[in-house]
């Protein structure tokens, strides 16, 4: 082997220049791995402070809590609160969700269960029986993403405000 340098009496295919580069790359790689762990703790890959998304509130009568960063097939939740002023009738509260967004997910459960579900051209309308008291109705969708990439959803109350929310789903 012509490119094997003689190091004293021992023949080793050393390449100190390459070795130094690979040490540098390794050190850089450790930093990248550490950064990935820190980012994961902060929620950049889902489930953490950075991942918590929120839209709306008591003044609008309706709010959405969603996950900004989610992962394919991993459980996630979408929490919706409807205040009494945004109700359709005294005993019913309705919300709609964007159909395309729902198609990108699999809904495993809705708590409380909706009284009715109806399809509209580009949305799905859910109606819930609402408590008589003045407290907001909390609805939790448990779901799993079935597509990855950037997914934009929209939720709203019929005749009231609606909010869009963007999610990044990791493969």
């Amino acid at each position, binding site marked *: 082997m012509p490119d094997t340098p003689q190091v004293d009496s021992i023949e*080793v295919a*050393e390449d100190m220049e390459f*070795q130094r580069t*690979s040490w540098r790359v390794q050190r850089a790689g450790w930093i990248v791995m550490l950064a990935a762990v820190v980012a994961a703790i902060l929620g950049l890959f889902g489930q953490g402070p950075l991942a918590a998304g929120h839209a709306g509130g008591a003044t609008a009568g309706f709010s959405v809590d969603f996950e900004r960063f989610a992962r394919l097939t991993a459980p996630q939740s979408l929490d919706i609160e409807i205040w009494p002023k945004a109700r359709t009738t005294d005993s019913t509260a309705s919300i709609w969700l964007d159909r395309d967004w729902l198609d990108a997910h699999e809904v495993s459960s809705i708590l409380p269960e909706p009284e009715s579900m109806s399809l509209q051209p580009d949305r799905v309308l859910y109606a819930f029986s609402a408590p008589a008291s003045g407290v907001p109705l909390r609805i939790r969708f448990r779901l799993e993403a079935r597509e990855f990439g950037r997914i934009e959803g929209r939720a709203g109350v019929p005749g009231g405000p609606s909010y869009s929310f963007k999610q990044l789903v990791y493969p």
Partner: protein
Amino acid sequence: MESVIRAATVYLVLLAIFRIAGNRSIAQLTAFDFVLLLIISESIQQALVARDYSMTNAFLLIVTLVGLDIMLSLWKQRSPRAEKILDGVPILIVRDGKPLEDRMRKERVDEGDIMHSARDRHGLERLDQVKHAVVEATGGISIIPVRSD
């Protein structure tokens, strides 16, 4: 198609992670390293198989993984540069009985590791019986003992 992409991604990511971790991390398996390897294989298994437990999927995954391994070995055979990048290079850490401290530190090898190999393979008793020591590209330490003639 998804199985092939999945297997190829897992192969390349694992290759990168283990190269970054350094060869020394896996060459001398302690009992705990062995457990760690089992946990790593367990964690990657779900991502690899996803929800498809069919035999077809399993065969596709295996064929992709083994196929990639063969392809890379052919590439390494043709290109010395590829071999260096994928496997690393050997490095001398004891030259003529003298430990090269700086290299040992960067390779995360200490005198204890050298003596471990020296005892294990050559039955040596002291460091001054070691003429040369090399951290091989595979991560193991080769010892050339001082000739006693």
